């Protein structure tokens, strides 16, 4: 902590980034399906230094009742950061940022979940960020997809997520915290690889039209890497030795 290093090299002459990665290399990703006893489905993800826990409940009765829909089930998502998850203590009350992220993650998951099969019910997704280090919304979305699958909720596909961005005039995969602070653009992407649909997309930072297209491409390719790790997590729990 204590201010940014002004001399930090974001990208050296060999194309190596400040944390030793290549430009198209994601951080270390570990996903574990299951783990929580009381939740209907759960997942834990470590994405670089991000550590995020997701629990899913439902389909279950909707409370308050007026929120229920007779035509379809509803999805509710709460993204929440613990006070100790960031450098300076965060106020535990939901911030405007957390409310917005909850909404974009909900809308990213909705196309994947077959809610119409469960009218008058709710599926609740609780995302708890235990440690944050840049790119939490993508890591959270990837883990939430695994948790929904772990809960046995019918899905069309899983949403895999990864960010792309512009750092030192170069389009790179998976922008970390330092790069986000000092970089030029950050574009989180959520993607359903089987359906080839982008369900989460945001951008801040300036990109030329060419860089914009390249950034989407790099991000989508990153999502495919995450997707394989998501599938492996489910495989390990249900078909491997890691069952519980």
């Amino acid at each position, binding site marked *: 902590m204590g201010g940014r290093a002004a001399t930090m090299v974001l990208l050296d002459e060999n194309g190596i980034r400040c944390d030793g990665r290549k430009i198209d290399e994601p951080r270390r990703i570990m996903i574990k399906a299951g783990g929580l006893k009381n939740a209907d489905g759960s997942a834990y993800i470590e994405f670089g230094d991000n550590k995020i826990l997701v629990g899913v409940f439902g389909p279950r009765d909707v409370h308050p009742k007026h929120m229920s829909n007779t035509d379809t089930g509803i999805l509710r998502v709460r993204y929440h950061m613990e006070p100790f998850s960031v450098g300076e203590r965060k106020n535990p009350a939901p911030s405007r940022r957390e409310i917005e992220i909850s909404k974009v993650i909900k*809308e990213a998951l909705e*196309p994947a979940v077959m809610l119409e099969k469960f009218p008058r019910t709710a599926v609740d997704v609780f995302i708890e960020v235990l440690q944050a280090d840049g790119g939490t919304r993508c890591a959270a979305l990837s883990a939430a997809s695994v948790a929904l699958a772990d809960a046995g909720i019918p899905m069309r596909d899983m949403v895999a997520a990864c960010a792309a961005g512009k750092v030192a005039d170069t389009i790179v995969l998976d922008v970390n915290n330092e790069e986000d602070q000092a970089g030029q653009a950050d574009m989180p992407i959520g993607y359903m690889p089987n359906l080839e649909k982008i369900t989460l997309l945001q951008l801040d930072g300036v990109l030329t039209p060419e860089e914009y297209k390249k950034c989407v491409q790099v991000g989508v390719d990153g999502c495919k890497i995450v997707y394989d790790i998501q599938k492996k997590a489910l495989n390990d729990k249900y078909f491997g030795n890691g069952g519980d």
Partner: protein
Amino acid sequence: MTSTSVIDELKKAQIIELLEQGKRVDGRTLEESREISIEINAIPKANGSARVRLGDTEVVCGVKIQPDRPFPDTGDKGLFICTAELLPLSHPTVETGPPQPPVIELARVVDRGIRESHMVDVSQLVIQKDKSVIGVFADNVVVDYDGNLFDACSYATAAALLASKTPKWDMVDDVPTLVEGGEFQLPTNTIPVSVTMGKIGNHIIVDPNGDEWDSMDARITITSDSDGNICALQKGGSDGFTQEEINQCGEISVRVGSKIREKLKSCQQESQ
């Protein structure tokens, strides 16, 4: 704003049927925005203001400029903060009380578009480094609703900022003191223009009106700057886009945005 009723379902069916023939309910082409009218400095007590109508959506943006303390890590920059609020008189379903997630998203997306374009040159808004800076607060209120608040608020904010004059302050005995007659045009670098597109079935439409807004499967808001670069983006709604659609939307936003920018430019000339 989404209430499911028989009428809504009928409207949606009609909207989709027309789109199959390449038409829209109000006769526009797919890439056409509604009529935009901008009245600048409608609120003389504000340092800059704009009343914008986008079709039947109406937004008033007022800019207030006052001395403030800088953020601890950016003592060499002024502040820029943008908000948006939905007034209860704008639609029968709007209730008073704390803002709901869609309104929080609206405010944050509008703020991000203006901020990420670096429109306001905050480096010129310093009274004394690390001690006192000029804060620019752009507050939007929606007074009439007919869909696409993102663009209406974005145009209102950009127009109000272009029309803004900032008072001048000097440090006297460690207190920012107003310099009489020192007023100057708010320094700006670029004119960001947001273009919101809705996806209905496989059709992409620019600037959805209220009925189209309720019928959309997904939406995307893309902000571009005066150089034709893309500087902010937000996808929303309960469906996805293909990669090709995302590329297509990027191109549309720059193309449509450049036309709307011409309209905003005239606000700047008008206020000078």
